[in-house]
């Protein structure tokens, strides 16, 4: 478990989540330490993406769901799942990278600048500076610096995903959520994204959902194993992979099911 010495960026408390009558999350408790990478692994339909999408209130766009419990965001200690909290404010602090690269059909520059534009930044020099910084951190700057005005869909899949990461970073988020960010990419592009995630944790807290257990092992400080809506086990990545406490975790990691 994260030690008491670390700053806790966010904390999930007794979270239950329902799609209609189906209970998708069952009493999840989880602490997200600051500037670490946390992986969530587990078989399809275990609730890991549902949990991830709670963090930036993505469920708000769909009907027929409900929840009990809290996600506390520090340092203020606000419950971001509270109906009184504006989801837009939550998304300004917690951004997300999706499973499939989803750049806007706009220029490379406008894609990264979009999060700033919705905040009312219009000064070209400020936009340019922030876009360059975000693209540099996303390891894309050198590849695209001469063609910022070209359409983003002309980039390769891996480049598109790094562009989406730049878009998520340009707004200086406190937490970045990754929903299986490499599942649509080839191994080389995947390796680059993984390197990138390891670099990013110097700046932000990262919560990443992945199907790929090796990936979780390579990049994360802490790993949570989810099964049927429950967080079965959560702890240091090394411990989870070498010496899990739960039989279920061991079975999943050694490939007995999943």
């Amino acid at each position: 478990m994260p030690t008491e010495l670390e700053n806790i960026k966010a904390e999930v408390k007794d979270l239950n989540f329902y799609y209609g009558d189906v209970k998708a999350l069952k009493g999840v408790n989880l602490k997200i330490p600051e500037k670490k990478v946390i992986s969530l692994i587990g078989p399809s339909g275990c609730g890991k993406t549902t949990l991830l999408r709670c963090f930036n209130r993505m469920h708000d766009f769909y009907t027929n769901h409900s929840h009990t419990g809290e996600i506390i965001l520090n340092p203020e200690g606000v419950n971001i799942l509270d109906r009184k909290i504006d989801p837009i404010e939550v998304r300004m602090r917690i951004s997300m990278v999706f499973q499939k690269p989803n750049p806007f059909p706009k220029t490379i520059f406008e894609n990264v600048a979009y999060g700033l534009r919705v905040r009312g930044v219009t000064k070209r020099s400020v936009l340019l500076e922030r876009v360059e910084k975000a693209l540099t951190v996303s390891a894309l700057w050198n590849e695209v610096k001469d063609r910022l005005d070209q359409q983003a869909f002309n980039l390769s899949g891996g480049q598109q995903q790094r562009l989406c990461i730049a878009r998520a970073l340009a707004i200086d988020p406190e937490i970045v959520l990754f929903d299986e960010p490499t599942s649509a990419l080839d191994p080389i592009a995947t390796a680059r994204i993984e390197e990138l995630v390891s670099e990013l944790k110097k700046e932000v807290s990262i919560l990443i959902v992945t199907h790929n257990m090796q990936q979780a092992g390579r990049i994360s400080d802490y790993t949570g194993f989810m099964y049927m809506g429950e967080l079965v086990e959560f702890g240091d990545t090394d411990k989870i992979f070498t010496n899990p406490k739960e039989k279920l975790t061991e079975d999943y990691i050694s490939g007995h099911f999943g």
Partner: protein
Amino acid sequence: MELKTNYKRQLLINKIFDVFFKYLGLFFLICALIALLALIGNLVSEGFGRLSFQFLSSFPSRFADKSGILSAWVGSFAVMLMTALFAIPLGVASGVYLEEYAPKNKITTFIELNITNLAGVPSIIFGLMALGLFVYKMSLGQSIITAGMTLGLLVLPVIIVTTREAIKTIPVHIREASYAVGATKLQTIRYHILPYSAGGIITGIIIAMSRAIGETAPLITIGALTFIAFLPASPFISQAPFVSTQWMFDPFTVLPIQMFNWVSRPQEDFHTNAAAAGLILIVFTLTLTAVAIIIRNYFRKRIKW
């Protein structure tokens, strides 16, 4: 062995049907094309000789050779402008509201169903409604604004439906990407939904306009004049504020009504005039359709997910 021969025989039959239907389809297509060409050919052979500057710049007259379509094409143009001013904001806003804001419940479904039904209501019904509501209740008279609003209502369902269809083609992951960086609904509509669906929406608007330009029945119902020898007031005036809305309240005629008027006369020369006016109307419509296609291709090239 038996199975194999059966199989070959069946294949032969299938192939014969295949070829048969291919040529049957081609035959019907050619029939339709011939009918269309004959129609246009007839108009051209009858009316083309009558087209001249005099024809475009003269008012109708008792004498066929002195008649022209000046008041008709100016009227058509003014009515189209009014229709567009009325129908585009209403139609696009309704489409965006229904697709983006409306709660998904039974009332919304009921409204959607009725909008689709409205598209199938005969145009003369719109004319009757407009006569009662715009001409008498709202005292707008038999004016360009009445005509514009009538035709606007008539094509409103087309614009609403095409707007919604265009918006529906935008993938969910693009919307989510916008919301995920903290955009509001309005920002998402302004920066993504409208720009990406603009091609489809504009195409729908133009299709709607090319339907409106040929409408006759509702305009006759509201009392458009069939013989008119003056133009609506100029929209520009010499004193401040230099623009005037007087033209909206002037009487008018439109191309199809002028044609109808000429066709119903016994003299052969007026029929020639009608054919020439018909040619102008077809050129109008074809131009609009061509513009729609160009705009659609322009936007398609720019949008890729």
